[in-house]
């Protein structure tokens, strides 16, 4: 059952491809990447041992070509494929193609993926396994009386939802019994009008929940362990923006209980390799299983920083058939880690995408900072893919110090030529709710909508922008005067300018 991998094909792009090939290199395993046409000069290609073109820009003609990728792996003698996140990572049929092609898929079995991928079956299995789910039933309620009885059994507030529904149509929040009859009739009528079907069901409504997820890891010998939680409540339109570990509100006892639930969930489907159980957590320490992500998460580094484990390394060892060692007994977090996702978007211009060339780039460095980037200075950010440029991850002894370190990292970061979400994080660091860890999944959208979060620094600029612009204009004019003669002369002029700047005896004595 144990088989050392010698070459792994990474079926992904961007920062996660870089993340994976770094660990492969450390393990002495050859790394091969695929790339679409616009990604020929991307960072994973430059760092990989091998790189193969897979098609044109659209994902469905390149990074989603499952059979071609398996065939490529066979052709180049790769033992395994790491799918990263997104793209093919949660497609059970791709895991099956790998199996049929004799290629190790670095992830769970297709059967486990199927079981977790089907909402109805997954919910049934979780209930059977004793994993708490959001109370409620998919069975249609036949009358207002039945609705009232069911709501009383799970407790208010509840949400009435259309069985055929989606998009908020036929949905009603009900806070107490007197409201339920009218809400039932209203929701049924709206469901009929919108979907041609008046069936509705009731679910418990969780007030201002947090998104807290548990990282699990399973080996091929039936052992599954919890590696602790991540707090991912800061979301914009259901997309995580900031993640941290540990959660500011999860006690050791709650951590143990959530971890046990996640291990039961994973074990119920025979889960192996890395996976994440997402939960809603309410103010009374009740938690409810939402779904399991059957892959490595974007935010896995915060778990790595507080546990000292390398999750990609562990994924590969598990895929090779190694059992989880004693270092996985009772893993506890040390210190505090925070990750921010740096996107090529302007956060205060409605997150308008900002493709283009990265002209200046300086990542923050020094103590407690990790950058997982997919770009470099001079790289072109194209329009074709997810606009995430990098993840900045900080670690410190405790949460207040980690927040201060994040502020320092953002002050050092320089990225010019495109707009990024860095100003959003600077604004968040000035937000008292974020500072105090008082988070919920609706908070960021609400604060963005109300203007409570906004760009900083405009007011305190003083004369700096004007002085800088004036000196730049002056310098540019000087250079323009020196320019027309010849390109060679221009270079000489610049060299002379540099010499002057370094001349001993010069410089102001301020």
């Amino acid at each position, binding site marked *: 059952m144990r088989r050392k991998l010698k070459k792994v094909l990474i079926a992904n792009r961007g920062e996660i491809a870089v993340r994976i090939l770094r660990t492969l290199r450390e393990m002495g395993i050859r790394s091969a990447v695929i790339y679409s046409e616009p990604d020929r000069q991307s960072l994973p290609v430059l760092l990989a041992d091998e790189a193969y073109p897979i098609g044109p820009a659209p994902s469905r003609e390149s990074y989603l070509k499952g059979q071609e990728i398996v065939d490529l792996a066979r052709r180049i003698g790769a033992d395994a494929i790491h799918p990263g996140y997104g793209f093919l990572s949660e497609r059970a049929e791709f895991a099956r193609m790998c199996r049929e092609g004799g290629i190790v898929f670095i992830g769970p079995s297709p059967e486990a993926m199927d079981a977790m991928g089907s909402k109805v079956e997954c919910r049934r299995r979780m209930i059977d396994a004793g994993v708490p789910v959001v109370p409620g039933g998919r069975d249609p309620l036949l009358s207002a009386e039945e609705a009232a009885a069911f709501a009383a059994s799970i407790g208010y507030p509840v949400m009435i939802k259309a069985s055929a529904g989606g998009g908020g149509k036929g949905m009603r929040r009900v806070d107490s019994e007197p409201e339920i009859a009218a809400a039932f009739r209203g929701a049924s009528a709206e469901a009929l009008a919108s979907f041609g079907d008046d069936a509705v069901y009731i679910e418990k409504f969780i007030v201002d929940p947090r998104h807290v997820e548990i990282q699990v890891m399973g080996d091929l010998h039936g052992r599954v362990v919890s590696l602790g939680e991540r707090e991912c409540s800061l979301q914009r339109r259901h997309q995580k923006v900031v993640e941290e570990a540990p959660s500011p509100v999860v006690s050791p006892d709650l951590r143990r209980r959530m971890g046990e639930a996640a291990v039961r969930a994973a074990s119920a489907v025979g889960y192996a390799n890395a996976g994440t159980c997402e939960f809603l957590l309410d103010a009374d320490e009740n938690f409810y299983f939402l779904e399991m992500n059957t892959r490595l998460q974007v935010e896995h580094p915060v778990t790595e920083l507080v546990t000292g484990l390398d999750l990609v390394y562990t994924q590969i060892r598990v895929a090779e058939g190694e059992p989880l060692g004693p270092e996985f007994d009772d893993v506890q977090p040390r210190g505090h880690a925070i990750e921010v996702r740096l996107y*090529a*978007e302007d956060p205060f211009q409605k*997150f*308008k*995408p*900002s*493709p*283009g060339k990265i*002209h*200046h780039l300086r990542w923050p460095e020094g103590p407690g900072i990790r950058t997982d980037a997919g770009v470099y200075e001079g790289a072109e950010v*194209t*329009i*074709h*893919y*997810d*606009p995430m440029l990098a993840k900045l991850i900080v670690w410190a002894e405790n949460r207040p110090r980690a927040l201060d370190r994040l502020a320092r990292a*953002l*002050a*050092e970061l*320089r990225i*010019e*030529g495109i707009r990024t979400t860095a*100003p959003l994080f*600077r604004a968040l660091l000035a937000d008292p709710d974020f500072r105090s860890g008082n988070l919920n999944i609706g908070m960021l959208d609400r604060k963005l909508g109300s203007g409570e979060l906004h*760009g*900083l*620094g*405009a007011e*305190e*600029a003083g*004369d*700096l*922008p*004007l*002085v*800088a*612009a*004036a*000196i*730049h*204009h*002056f*310098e540019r*004019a000087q250079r323009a005067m020196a320019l027309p003669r010849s390109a060679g002369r221009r270079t000489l002029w610049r060299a002379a*300018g540099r010499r*002057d*700047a370094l001349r001993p005896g*010069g*410089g*102001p004595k*301020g």
Partner: protein
Amino acid sequence: MELWIKHGEREERAKVRRDGDAYEVTIGEVVHRVDAAVLGRGAYSLRFNGVQREVVVRASGEAGLRVSGSSAAWEVEIAEPLAHLAATTGDPAARRRHKKVTAYMPGRVVAILAEVGAEVVAGQGIIVLEAMKMQNEILAEADGAIKAIYVQTGQAVEGGDPLFELT
């Protein structure tokens, strides 16, 4: 060198003079003595009596500069006074409104929401552009009629390509 500078609501006359390795920059009535190290590619280290600010200055739009500091960035317009004078003569409303609307970023046209000849109002969506899996509506900047549409659904455009024109 005399300059006209605009930052937000502020419009100022400025003067720049080189004094050895330092600069004397006058903004309005205030004189700043600045030790500026030219780091190349628009980057500077500016010292104001010891206070150090690292900035990057890059062109932004047609006549603007974007000045980036360590925690914020500012858009500045700058011109030499004669050039500024020339640019500001004529009908101010006509200058301000960009009748020909261009793509602010590369992308793909996924929908066209108005036809040539249609009357539109300021803020109305005319073209939907998709980039990085996000859809973005390109709006009319003023009331008017659509004089021309330069793109078709499905077409890829580069940043700066003309999309449509208002009367």
